[in-house]
C-alpha cells in the first residue's frame, strides 16, 4: 500500500511539474549578442533572395531556404 502511495505521489508531482511554464533559460536582457545586426537570420533579403534564385535555377534541389520565388528564369 505504501508503495502504491509513493508511486501515486510521484505521478502527481510529475504531472504538476509538466504543467509548470517553461522558464526561459536565456533572459530577455541576455540577448544583446543575438540582437546584433550581424546575427540577423536574413541580413540582406534582396541579395539572399537573388542568390537563392541563381542556385535554384541551376540545381535539382529546391526549398527550405526561407526564400520565395516565382517564374522560371531557368535558361
Amino acid at each position, binding site marked *: 500500500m505504501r508503495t502504491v502511495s509513493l508511486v501515486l505521489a510521484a505521478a502527481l508531482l510529475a504531472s504538476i511539474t509538466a504543467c509548470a511554464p517553461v522558464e526561459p533559460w536565456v533572459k530577455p536582457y541576455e540577448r544583446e549578442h543575438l540582437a546584433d545586426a550581424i546575427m540577423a537570420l536574413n541580413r540582406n*533579403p534582396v*541579395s539572399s533572395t537573388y542568390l537563392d534564385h541563381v542556385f535554384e535555377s541551376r540545381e535539382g534541389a529546391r526549398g527550405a531556404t526561407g526564400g520565395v520565388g516565382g*517564374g522560371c528564369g531557368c535558361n
Partner: protein
Amino acid sequence: MRVRPGRVPSWCMRTLIAVCFIAVPALAGVLPPDRADMLYHRYQGGGITVQGPSILVQKKIGDHLSIGANYYEDMISSASIDVLLSASPYREKRTQKSVSAEYLHGKTTYSAGFINSVEPDYKANTSYYSVSQDMFGDLTTVTMSYRRGWDQIFRDIKQNGFIVNDPTFHQRADHRVYGVSLSQILTRNLISTFDYELSTDQGYLASPYRQIRYLDPDNPVGYTLANQIYPGTRTSDAFSVELKYYVPYRAALTGKYRYFTDSWGIVAHTVQVDYVQPIRHHWTLDGNIRYYRQGAASFYSDLFPYAGYSNYMARDRELAAFHSITLGVEASYAFSIPHLTWIQKSTATLRFDRMMITYLDYRDALFSKFDPGAIRAGAEPLYSLDASVFQAYVSLWF
C-alpha cells in the same frame, strides 16, 4: 551587460533591452524594419549573361502592419550549350513584381504575399501565406507556411523574322509548397533554425527547348535529338538546419546543411559556412563557401541507347549528377547622408560569388556535333561550368 536578478535595470538598460527585442526580427514578434534596397545583379557563365535591377521596399503602417514591394528584372542573353546544341542564341527579359504584408497581433505574425513573373514564354503567379507564433519566453518561434503557384508555359518560334509564341503550344503547371520552420535560441550566443518544405508539382514540368539525344548510327554525328518526356508530377522534401553563433570578439559564424530528395530520384546535399566580421564602425566583411552535390534523376541520361528507350527521358543539366563549389565575398560600408535626417542608416555593398560546377554524367555534345569524325557521341569530355555572380546594392533604413 548581464543584469542580476532582483536588481531594477537603469533606463539605459531598459532601452537596450527594448532595442534587443526590436532587432531580432526572426525570433520575436516584431515587424521588419522600414527599409529600401536598390540592387544591380549580373550573372555570367556558360555562354549566358543575366543582369538587371531589383528594388525592395518595406514600410510599417502603424504598430501592427508592415507592407513590402519588390520589382526585379532579368535581362537574359543566352548562347548556352543547350541553346547551341538545338536552338539559336536569343535575348529576352523577365520581370517580377511582388507585394507582401505582415500583420502582428500579440505574439503572432500573419504574412501573405503575391508574386507575378512575366517573360515572353513563361508566365507565373504565386501566392503565399504564413503564420508565426512566439512561445516559451520568446525563445522559440514556430512558422507554418503555404505557397501556391500557377504557371503558363509557351514556346517561342521564329516566324517571318520575328520571335512569337508557337500557337500550337500552351502548357500549364501548378505548384504547392507546405512548410514548417522552428527558430530556437539555444544560448545567449547561439541560434538554431530548422526548416522543412514539402513541394508538389503537377503539369508540364520540362523545358520545351531542351532535347534528349539517343544513339543513331545512321546520323553522321552519331546521335539524333528528340523531345524530352517528363513525368507530369513531382513531389520533393527539403530539410535544413542552420546554426548561427556569435563569436565573442563580435563576429558571426553560420553553418547550414540541407538534405533534399524527390520522387524523380534526385538526392542532394548542401553545406554552407558563412563568416561575418565587422571592422570598426563602417565596414562589414562577409565570406562564405557553399558545397552542393546531387545525384541524377532516375529518367536522366546524357545519351539514351535508342529512341523510345523508356517512358520518361530527360537530358536537362539540372537533373544530371554534379557537384559545385561557390565562394563568396562581400564588403559593406555604412555611411551617413547629409541633410536627409529621416534616413537612420545607409550602407553600400559589393558582393562577388564564383560558382564552379562539375558535371559527372553530362557531356559536352558540341564536340561531336562540330567534329564528329574526331570524337564519337558518348565519348565527349564532361561538361563543366564556371560562373561569376556580381551584386552591388545600396540599403537605406528610415
